[in-house]
C-alpha cells in the first residue's frame, strides 16, 4: 500500500513532533532522573494537542478516528525516536478495547477522556514469563476479579485498568479502578527503561463490558500491528545510524563501509527493514479494512518486526564496535527496546505459531 495525502501529512507532522519533543535524549533524561511517572509528560501533552491521543477514538467521542494506519505512522516515529509515551497503552490498546466492546456509558465516560488526555489506560493480560492470552488464570466471578498480572504497560500511572480474565468459559476484558480495594500495584522498570507493572487483584470489584471478549481480541490485534510499526521505525533508525557510521568511521586506513563483508550485511539489513516497514503498513491497512487475512498479516508483521528489530540492534551494536557497547552512546537503547517491544503482546515464536495455525499447519 501507499500512503494517501492525509496520511503522508500526518507522518510528516508526527516526525517533526517526535524529533523535536521526544528524541532519545529525553528517554535518557527520564531514566537518569528516575522520573516517577516514567513517561514524557510534555511530549504527551503535545500529542494531546495534536489530537494524536484520540487517533483511534471515534469522532463522536472527540477523537480523530484516523484508523490503525494512522496509529502505525505515529508508532513508527515513536520507534525512530524511542519516545516515551503511554501511546500504546492508552491511545491504542485502551481506545481500541473500549471502542470495540465497552457499553455506551463506558465509552462516553472514557473515550473522550483518552482523546483529551485526561485519562491513562492500561491493559493487564500477561501472567507469566510469556504472553499466553488464551490460558488465563485470572478469574472473574460474581462481579469480582482475582489474579496476578505483569507487564502491564504504564500500569502504575493508569486511571483505568482493563483486565483480561476468564469467567470459566470466555476470556474477556473487565474495567477495574486502580484505586479499588484489593489492587496492589508494583511499578517494574524494564530493560528498555519503560514502565510496566506487576498488579495483584484480590477479589476486586470489576465492571464487565458489553462485549469484553471482542474488546480483548481487538486490542491485542491492534496492539500487535502498531507494535510492528514501532519496531519497523526503530529498525529503520538503527539502520540509518549504522549506515552513517559505516560512512564515517575509519579503520585500517579506510572507511569501514568499504569492507565488502559489512556492505553485504548492511544491504541485507536494509532489505529486512524495508520489508518490515511494508508489511507493517500493509497489516495495519488490512485491519482497517477488516481483510480476511488481517489476523495472519498482523502475526506475520509482529513476528517479522520482532526479528528485524533484534537483528538491527545486534548489527547496530556490532558494527559500531566498542562505542556501541557504551551507555553514553544511544544505540544500546534501541537494542533494549527491540527486545522489550518484540516480547510485548507475543514474541516472534508466538506469532509464528499463530501464523502457522491460521495457515492450517
Amino acid at each position, binding site marked *: *500500500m501507499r500512503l494517501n495525502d492525509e496520511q503522508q501529512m500526518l507522518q510528516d507532522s508526527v516526525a517533526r513532533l517526535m524529533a523535536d519533543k521526544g528524541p532519545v535524549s529525553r528517554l535518557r533524561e527520564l531514566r537518569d532522573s528516575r522520573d516517577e511517572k516514567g513517561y514524557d509528560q510534555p511530549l504527551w501533552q503535545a500529542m494531546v494537542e495534536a489530537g494524536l491521543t484520540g487517533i483511534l477514538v471515534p469522532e463522536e467521542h472527540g477523537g480523530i478516528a484516523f484508523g490503525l494506519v494512522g496509529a502505525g505512522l505515529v508508532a513508527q516515529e515513536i520507534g525512530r525516536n524511542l519516545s516515551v509515551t503511554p501511546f500504546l497503552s492508552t491511545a491504542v490498546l485502551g481506545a481500541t478495547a473500549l471502542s470495540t466492546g465497552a457499553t455506551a456509558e463506558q465509552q462516553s465516560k472514557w473515550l473522550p477522556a483518552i482523546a483529551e488526555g485526561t485519562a491513562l489506560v492500561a491493559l493487564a493480560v500477561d501472567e507469566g514469563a510469556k504472553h499466553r492470552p488464551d490460558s488465563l488464570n485470572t478469574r472473574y466471578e460474581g462481579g469480582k476479579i482475582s489474579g496476578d498480572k505483569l507487564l502491564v504497560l504504564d500500569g502504575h500511572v493508569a486511571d483505568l485498568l482493563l483486565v483480561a480474565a476468564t469467567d470459566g468459559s470466555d476470556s474477556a476484558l473487565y474495567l477495574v479502578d486502580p484505586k479499588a480495594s484489593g489492587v496492589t500495584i508494583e511499578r517494574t522498570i524494564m530493560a528498555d527503561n519503560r514502565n510496566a507493572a506487576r498488579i495483584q487483584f484480590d477479589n476486586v470489584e470489576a465492571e464487565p463490558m458489553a462485549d469484553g471478549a471482542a474488546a480483548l481480541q481487538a486490542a491485542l490485534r491492534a496492539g500487535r500491528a502498531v507494535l510492528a510499526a514501532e519496531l519497523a521505525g526503530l529498525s529503520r533508525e538503527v539502520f540509518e545510524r549504522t549506515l552513517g557510521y559505516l560512512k564515517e568511521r575509519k579503520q585500517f586506513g579506510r572507511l569501514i563501509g*568499504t569492507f565488502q563483508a559489512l*556492505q553485504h550485511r548492511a*544491504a541485507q539489513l536494509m*532489505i529486512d527493514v*524495508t520489508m518490515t516497514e*511494508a508489511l507493517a503498513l500493509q497489516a495495519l491497512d488490512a485491519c482497517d479494512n477488516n481483510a480476511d487475512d488481517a489476523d495472519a498479516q498482523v502475526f506475520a508483521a509482529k513476528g517479522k518486526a520482532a526479528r528485524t528489530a533484534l537483528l538491527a540492534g545486534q548489527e547496530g551494536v556490532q558494527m559500531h564496535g566498542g562505542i556501541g557497547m557504551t551507555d553514553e552512546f544511544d544505540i544500546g537503547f534501541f537494542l533494549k527496546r527491540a527486545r522489550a517491544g518484540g516480547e510485548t503482546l507475543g514474541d516472534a515464536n508466538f506469532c509464528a505459531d499463530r501464523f*502457522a*495455525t491460521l495457515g492450517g*499447519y
Partner: protein
Amino acid sequence: MSDLEQFRAETREWLQANCPEEMRQPVRGPEDHCWGGRKWQFQSDAQRVWMERMAEKGWTAPQWPQEYGGGGLTPEQAAILDEEMKRINARTPVSNFGFWMLGPALLKFGSDELKRKHLPPICRGEIRWCQGYSEPNAGSDLASLQTRAEDKGDHFLVNGQKIWTSYADKADWIFCLVRTDPNATKHNGISFVLFDMETPGVTTRPIELISGESPFCETFFDDVKVEKDAVVGELNRGWDVAKYLLTHERNNIGGEPPGYLKGRALGPLAAEHVGTENGKLADSALRADIARLETDHMAFRALVAKVRAEAEAGEGVGALSAVLKYYGTELNKRRYELMMDAMGAEGLEWESERTQGGMFASEWLRSKGNSIEGGTSEVMLGIVSKRVLGLPDA
C-alpha cells in the same frame, strides 16, 4: 458505463468466444507453455488457434504499439485483459525472450526500422529469440565479455563463445552483446546486435544441469557475418541496453515459486508428508521454519506491492530491482529446501513415476541456479550497497 467498464465487457465476451476450452485448463508444467518460433511444434490445434487469434488482436503483446503488432492497450486496459484471462484460466498464448527482453529493448533503444522488422514477427509468434550475454570467463562480470565483432566495412564478423544462452538450440534469432571496440574501457566498446541463429558459423550445444534439464546452451560463433544495421541503440553503447534489460528482467521476479510449488502452500503440503499432531505439523522444527519462511514471504510480497505501486506512480524502481532479485531468489531456494525437508524420502526418488521422474528433487536443484543467473546474489548485494546505500568502494 465507463470506457474501462466497456472494455472489460467486450474483452470478456471476446475471450469467451475465442479462447478454446483446452486453453482454459491450468498449466501442468513447462511442457504446456507455448514458445512459438519457426521450429515450434504446436501441442494441439487449440494451442495454435489460441496463439493466432490473440496475435490478430495484438494481445500477445498487449501494451506494444499497434503499428508493431501489439495491442496498443493502456496499462489499465492491459490489467483488465490480464484479470479477464485469469478469470477463465486462459493460458498465455505465446511467450519467449522476444516478448520479455528484446521487445522492451527495441521499444526503448531501437530504430523505427528495427522495430518494424522484428516486433511484428515476435507478436505473431513466428520468431523465437534467445539471449547471448554470458561468456565462460565473464559470468558475474558480464562487461568483461570477449566475443568480438570486427568491422569488415559492410558487415561485422563475429567470433567468440556465449554460455547460458537459454534455449539457444530452439531459438531462431539471438540478441547478443559483442565487443565492437577492443580498445575502449570495459563498459564501453560493447554493442547490442541481432542475428539469425541459422547464419553460417553459429553452433550451439545444450548444457545439462544438475537438475537433469537442459534449458541452457553453449553457443559458438565462428566468422559469423552480421549486418551493420543490426545494432540496437548506438554502436559501442550496448552496455546501456544490457543494463536496462537486466533491470527490466529483475523487475519480473515477484518471488512466487514456479513449478510444482506454484500456488501450493508449503504448510499443508508438509502436513501431508510429515503428518500432524493435534492439528500441528508433527515436525515442530519444520513447522517453525515454514512459518518463518512464509512470514518472510509475506513481507517480501508487501515490499513487491509497494515497489510496484511506486513504479506506477512514476517513482521508478531503479536499484531496488536488485533487492527484489536478491531476496526473491533466496526465498525461493529456502522454500525448496523446506519442501525437500517435508517430502523426505518421497521427494528424493529420481527415476520413478511417483515423482514424475524426480520432479521434486529436480526443481529443488534447479532453484540453486536462481541466485546465480541474471546476476548473482553477491552482485545484487553489491549493487544495493553501492547504489541504494551509497557505500563507497574500497
